[in-house]
């Protein structure tokens, strides 16, 4: 099969799946109250589909550590449902997510310590940093999924997915880049639905799941491909910038201004690393196009 056609299918089919699930929860009155359950299924199920289409069905345990993400996405759907707990019990979600992320990070990066690429001390430091950074990203941005209606938040998430996909691609992993781009396409379907259904909300669970998957793709690109640590840090900051509109001084701004400011921050924090990576790629004059 043609590479371009395969890429389009790998992004398009999961996006259509996610759109269908979101539509079920948005249009069918009997299912509207289950949107909190369906929205994480749209994101998680869409990712599982894209993973199978791009990398195949991984064995359990996977031989390749980056394929843990398939199983993390499955677990992530359950964590996303937990994110929808009433406010009084959300601490439980936070605690479970932190524990789960710690365990997942050990699974995902233990091979780098075993192979000697990371020293035991450096490995433990990285595992702790990645777990805490991903936890902060999920916990800080998840409330936006509940508060924001329409196409704005899905558009920002799609932009983050697209920029980070390009960044990973230019840092030597086409498959991780492709997975990130397809995750962006799934969220892109949310933009379409947000425009179609103005009351459309991604929900806390789906936003936290989408960010967890994206952060994992960044982290794997850092651990197993060539994404530099400072670009990884900028990607985390770009993700956290999605929550800046809830910061008191900015919360008073007009929603359009909040959106514009966050988009500008995204372009700055994720776009500049992409531009620098692209320039480095061009400067190498290698003519290598994968």
């Amino acid at each position, binding site marked *: 099969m043609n590479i371009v056609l395969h890429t389009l299918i790998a992004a398009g089919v999961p996006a259509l799946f996610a759109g269908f699930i979101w539509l079920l929860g948005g249009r069918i009155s009997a299912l509207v109250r289950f949107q909190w359950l369906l929205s994480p299924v749209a994101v998680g199920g869409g990712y599982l589909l894209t993973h199978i289409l791009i990398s195949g069905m991984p064995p359990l345990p996977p031989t390749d550590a980056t394929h843990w993400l398939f199983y993390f996405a499955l677990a992530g759907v359950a964590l996303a449902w937990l994110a929808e707990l009433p406010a009084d019990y959300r601490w439980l979600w936070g605690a479970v997510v932190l524990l789960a992320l710690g365990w997942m990070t050990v699974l995902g990066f233990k091979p780098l310590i075993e192979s000697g690429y990371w020293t035991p001390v450096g490995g433990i430091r990285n595992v702790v940093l990645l777990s805490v950074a991903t936890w902060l990203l999920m916990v800080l941005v998840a409330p936006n999924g509940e508060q924001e209606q329409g196409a704005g938040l899905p558009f920002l998430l799609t932009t983050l997915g697209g920029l980070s996909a390009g960044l990973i691609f230019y840092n*030597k*992993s086409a498959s991780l880049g492709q997975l990130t781009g397809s995750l962006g396409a799934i969220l892109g379907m949310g933009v379409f639905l947000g425009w179609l259904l103005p009351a459309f909300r991604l929900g806390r669970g789906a936003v936290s799941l989408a960010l967890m998957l994206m952060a994992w793709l960044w982290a794997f690109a850092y*651990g197993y491909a060539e994404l530099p640590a400072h670009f990884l840090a900028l990607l985390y900051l770009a993700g956290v910038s999605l929550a800046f509109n809830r910061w008191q001084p900015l919360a008073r701004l007009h929603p359009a201004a909040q959106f514009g400011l966050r988009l500008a921050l995204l372009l700055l924090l994720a776009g500049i690393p992409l531009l620098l990576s692209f320039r480095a790629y061009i400067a*190498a004059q290698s003519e290598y196009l994968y």
Partner: protein
Amino acid sequence: MSKVRKHRWLAYSGVLAMLMAPIESAMAQQVTYRVDPVHSFVIFRVKHMNTAYAYGRFNSFSGTIVVDEKNPANSSVKFEIDANSIDTGNSQRDDHLRGPDFFNVRQYPKITFKSTSVRRINANTFEVKGDLTIRGTTRPLTVRVTYVGKGRNPRGQEIIGFETTFTLKRSQFGVSYGLNGGLSDEVRVTIAVEAIRQ
């Protein structure tokens, strides 16, 4: 020591020597050679865009060959390639090949082969069966190895040469990126070794 005890000890020693003789003889027939990386080569080719062959090599590897000329079944081969040393003449492509799309060298830095049996087919050809491990996946592999020659290097060390060419499907080892039109599944590998007697 009494005369009787001395004779009994000598008798035991003689029996032990007779029992050990075949083992010693077998040991003497097995000669171990160490692969000389300077005069050995691991090269591969893969079809690009179903149009042309792209060639590459691994620059760092090691191995031992145990040769039993009288009884080749007692021979064995161990070979280890540093996957990080891949070299296709383009640094961008080499970085990509080292990454998770292909060899995932940070998780799996070594490619290994360990023989399980050796059989002589004719005077200069051997069938070597063994386990090949690439990217954490081990699969059986059978190759035909040609004995090239024997001699001495400028240092006066005894050297021996072998060569083998075989084709494998990279997807069987989990190296599946680019199968959709970019790169062929079949990879032809040639290993030519010169090994020094230890």
